[in-house]
C-alpha cells in the first residue's frame, strides 16, 4: 500500500485505545479507466466521528476513490464495508444495484465541487432536500418541509431563501444546499469532493466552519478530498496522500504536513505558498 516512505521511524502499532470499530474499511481498491490505473490498490479506514482528508495533485485518483466509496461505480477489485445497521460485515461492492442505492441514499451523503452534480437546479432548495427524505419513505408534506428546514439550518443556510431554486443562489449557498441534502437522513458517512474549491475565500471560511461545527455536533465521519492543504489542515484529523493512484503516506494531519516521511509528500507540502 505505501510506496517509498521513510522507513526510518518507529513503526506504529494497531489501535487499542479507541473503543469503537472503524465505521469504514476499504481494502485493495482498484479502478481502471482503459489503460489508466486511476485507483491502484488503495486501502483506508475511518473511525466514527473522524475526518479523513485525501490530498494529491489532479489525476492522483482521489475523486475516483470517492466515487467508489459512494457506490456510484464498481471497482475492478477491492472490498468495502461500513459498520451500519443491516449491512454490517458485508462487502458493499457485492450488493445488487438496488441495495447499493439504498445504502447510498440512507447512509452516505456526498457534496460535489460542482453543485450541478449534486442538486436538481430546477427544484427549490427545500425541494432538493425533501426529495431525499421522500426516497427514504416519508410522505407527509409537513414532515418533509420540517426535515428540509432542519437540514438547511444545520448547514447555516438562510431559511428565507429555502424556496429559491439553486440557480438563483450564490456558490456558497449552493454548497450549503448540497450539504443539507447530504445530511438530511443523518448518514454516518459524509463524502466531500473539493467542497470549497472555487468559492470566494471569505465564503470558504464560513463553509469550513459550518462543516467543523456539523462534524462536532453530529459526530459524523467525513472524508474530504481537496488539493488545498489549508482546507485539509483545518478540517481533517488524519490525511492520506495519493500519487498516481496509490497511497504514499497516511498519518495525523499535523504530522504529515510538518514531518512528511515520503518523498512525494515532502515535495507537496513544501510547494505550499
Amino acid at each position, binding site marked *: 500500500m505505501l510506496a517509498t516512505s*521513510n522507513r*526510518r*521511524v*518507529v*513503526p*506504529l*502499532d*494497531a*489501535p*487499542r*485505545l*479507541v473503543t469503537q470499530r472503524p465505521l469504514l474499511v476499504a481494502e485493495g481498491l482498484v479502478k481502471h479507466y482503459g489503460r489508466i490505473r486511476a485507483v491502484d490498490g488503495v486501502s483506508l479506514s475511518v*473511525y466514527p466521528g*473522524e475526518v479523513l482528508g485525501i490530498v494529491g495533485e489532479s489525476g492522483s485518483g482521489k475523486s475516483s476513490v470517492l466515487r467508489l466509496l459512494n457506490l456510484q461505480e464498481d471497482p475492478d477489485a477491492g472490498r468495502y464495508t461500513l459498520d451500519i445497521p443491516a449491512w454490517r460485515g458485508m462487502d458493499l461492492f457485492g450488493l445488487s444495484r438496488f441495495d447499493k442505492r439504498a445504502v447510498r441514499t440512507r447512509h452516505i451523503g456526498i457534496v460535489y465541487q460542482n453543485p450541478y452534480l449534486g442538486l436538481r437546479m430546477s427544484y427549490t432548495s427545500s425541494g432538493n432536500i425533501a426529495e431525499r427524505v421522500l426516497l427514504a419513505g416519508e410522505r407527509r408534506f409537513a414532515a418533509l418541509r420540517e426535515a428540509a428546514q432542519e437540514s438547511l439550518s444545520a448547514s447555516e443556510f438562510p431559511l428565507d431563501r429555502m424556496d429559491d431554486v439553486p440557480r438563483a443562489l450564490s456558490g456558497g449557498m449552493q454548497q450549503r444546499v448540497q450539504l443539507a441534502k447530504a445530511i438530511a437522513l443523518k448518514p454516518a458517512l459524509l463524502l466531500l469532493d473539493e467542497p470549497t474549491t472555487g468559492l470566494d*475565500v*471569505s465564503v470558504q*471560511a*464560513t463553509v*469550513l*466552519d459550518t462543516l*467543523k461545527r456539523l462534524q*462536532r455536533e453530529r459526530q459524523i465521519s467525513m472524508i474530504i478530498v481537496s488539493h488545498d492543504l489549508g482546507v485539509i*489542515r*483545518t478540517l481533517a*484529523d*488524519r490525511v492520506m496522500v495519493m500519487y498516481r493512484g496509490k497511497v504514499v503516506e*497516511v*498519518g*495525523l494531519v*499535523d*504530522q504529515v504536513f*510538518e*514531518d512528511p*516521511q*515520503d*518523498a512525494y509528500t*515532502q*515535495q507537496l507540502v513544501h510547494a505550499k505558498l
Partner: protein
Amino acid sequence: MLLTVQNYAKHFLIHHLGREVAVFEGLNFTLDAGQFALISGPNGVGKSTLLRCLYRSYRPTHGSAVYQSAFGAVDLARLADVDVLVLRRTEIGFVTQFLRPRPRVTALELVAEPLLEAGHAPEAARAEAEALLAGFGLKPGLLHAYPTTFSGGEQQKVNLARALIRPCRLLLLDEPTASLDAATRAMLVERLTTLKAAGVAMLGVFHHPEDVAALIDLEVHLTAGAALAALPGEEIPHVAE
C-alpha cells in the same frame, strides 16, 4: 513515573537532498505527575523538535516514550494515530507559539471549542472560555472579534487559553511566553503553578526560563546535535541529562 523517555532519537530524512539530518540521539529522562521539566540548550539544538516528537507532530526515529495514560501504559512513539488523537483530546496538551486561527471564528469560539468537542454544554463552555480569556487579560471587546486581526500578544493569549481550557495530565509547552508582556507572563506562570499543584506534569521550552524558575524540578539539557554536515558513521554527541 508518568513519562519515561528512553534512547529517544529524531532524524529528518530530506529526500530531495538525499540527506539525513540527526537532531538528537540517545535521549533519556523521566517525568512524574506534578513535575516541571525545563528543556534547555542553544537555539536550533532540537528543543521544539523534542516536544513535537512527544506530541507526535513529528515521528520519532527510534526509542520509546512510555506514558501512563488513564487507559494504561502506552508508548507514544508507537501509538496508533487514532489513539494519539484520543490522548490529545483527553490527556495531553500542547501549547505552542503558533496560533492557527480559522478565519471568521471569534476568539471566544476558538477557546470554547475544545470544551464543545468534549461534549460540554455551549453556554457553560462559552462562560468558561470568557473567564479564562479574562484571566489572561484579553480585552473584553476582543471576545467576539477574529484573532486573525489581533496583535501577536493578543493572539498568544487566545492560543494559551485554547490550549489550557481542558484539563490534561501532561502538558507540553513550546515557548508559551513569546510575544507576551510581563503582566501576562505572570498570569501564565500563576496558571501553571496552579496546574502543577493539581498534579499536571509539564515539559517546556522557555525563552526566558527565569519566568518559571520557581517551578522547575529538573532540566533536560540538549547539547549541540549533529549539524547538517554530519555523515553516516560520524559520532553523534550524546545528550547530557
